[in-house]
């Protein structure tokens, strides 16, 4: 069990730093955003599993030859309120840390969920009053605002796509259809669940390279996945034009510029600091370049390799947790 705990710790370090750094620099991810997304999910899951697992296995190792046996004897120690001469300070420390980390992750996940759904609910309540259903496109609301804005608000059966007047005016019907198709893809592919999980992961462990990098990668990958759905119905150049028009328009009516045209100086605006490096920027460039110069998708063999690597990444910490003492 001791060796297993060291191996788990090594794996946790690899998955927390070098592996995500390498993947975030890889170029193939834009060729198959789906495979990259699967890989990021297993990095996060396997990383969390090996972090907690390493401490758990180390702390329990004096109590038994395998995890199940050790947990059973630990439980009997607690239930019968006995003391154990096997458990030293560092073992107890590791067990407490494992319990704390586990609880912290679960709580952050829950808190993030509550905050996100609360903000969505409030946003939807105001939308009900401030927007009108689009006559032409179903489950779509149009809001009276000059800047070209499109977004979707997930919420189960009440999910909606929101477009601004400015967007409807600026785009041709074909471009508009591409934008709506893109937003619909976010909803049908449940991208909000991925963004929620990775946002919680980032908030739980903000100082860990993996949580920040994976969060950035995931938000860029979901855009590519939604673009790929839009490309099924709209030609690439139409989608590129739609992206460019919306980006240029939102830059022109962005911070500061939107206010005078609106004539509402009283709105409590906190202007964005211009020029702050933003994850959105890198993602926009990557999105456009893969549409402008399409790269071949990954070959089936490469795809299989990536998926196998993802599976292996989950299998290794699971095996390290369960195998010692059982196999031998």
């Amino acid at each position, binding site marked *: 069990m001791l060796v297993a705990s060291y191996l788990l710790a090594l794996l946790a370090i690899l998955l927390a730093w070098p592996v995500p750094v390498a993947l975030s620099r890889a170029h193939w991810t834009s060729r198959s955003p789906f495979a990259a997304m699967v890989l990021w999910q297993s990095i996060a899951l396997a990383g969390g599993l090996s972090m907690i697992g390493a401490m758990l296995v180390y702390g329990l190792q004096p109590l038994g030859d395998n995890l199940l046996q050790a947990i059973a004897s630990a439980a009997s120690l607690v239930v019968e309120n006995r003391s154990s001469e096997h458990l030293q300070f560092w073992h107890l420390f590791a067990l407490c840390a494992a319990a704390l980390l586990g609880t912290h992750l679960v709580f952050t996940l829950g808190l*993030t969920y509550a*905050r*996100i759904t609360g*903000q*969505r609910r409030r*946003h939807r*309540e*105001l*939308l*009900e*009053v*401030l927007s*009108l259903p689009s006559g032409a496109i179903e489950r779509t609301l149009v*809001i*009276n*605002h000059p*800047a070209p*804005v*499109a*977004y*979707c608000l*997930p919420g189960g059966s009440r999910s909606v796509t929101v477009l601004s007047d400015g967007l409807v005016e600026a785009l041709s019907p074909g471009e508009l259809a591409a*934008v709506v198709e*893109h*937003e619909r893809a976010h909803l049908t592919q449940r*991208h*909000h669940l991925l*963004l*929620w999980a990775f*946002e919680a992961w980032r*908030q739980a462990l903000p100082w860990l390279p993996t949580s920040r990098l994976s969060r950035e990668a995931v*938000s860029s990958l979901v855009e590519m996945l*939604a673009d790929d759905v839009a490309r099924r119905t709209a030609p690439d150049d139409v989608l*590129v*034009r739609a*992206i*460019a028009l*919306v*980006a*240029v328009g*939102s*830059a*022109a009516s*962005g911070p500061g510029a*939107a206010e005078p045209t*609106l*004539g*509402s100086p*009283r*709105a409590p*605006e906190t202007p*964005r600091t*211009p*020029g702050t490096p*933003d994850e*959105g*920027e890198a*993602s*926009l460039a990557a999105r*456009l370049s893969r549409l402008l110069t399409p790269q071949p998708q990954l070959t089936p063999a490469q795809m299989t390799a990536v998926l196998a690597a993802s599976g292996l990444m989950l299998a290794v910490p699971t095996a390290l947790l369960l195998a010692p003492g059982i196999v031998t």
Partner: protein
Amino acid sequence: MASLGELERSVMDQLWSTAEAATANELRDRLAQSVVQSKDLAVTTVLTVLSRLEKKGLVERERGTRPHRYRAISTREDHTARLMHEALGTAPDREAVLARFIGSVSEAEAATLRKLLARG
């Protein structure tokens, strides 16, 4: 009969069109005149709608008078601007709340894109 959402919209339209406060009775009469579907609207329904709007922070009640008079809190444009600011905000957890077609755009990027558009 109009849905609650549509009624909320109609009531706010009435309150925004005149800056003055109005009672539920007055609002009912004005709705009956202007909105076709609300001929047989009950005052209690209007009161329900008003209390929902109050919870959403869109109307406020003048406490001193009986019957209560309701007025809109700030203009439609202000609320829209605030909502759009929320949608366009750059808070890191924003993307998890709603998925935007385009995130924030830098000035340099906008310039490149303008060239791209001019070319094509």
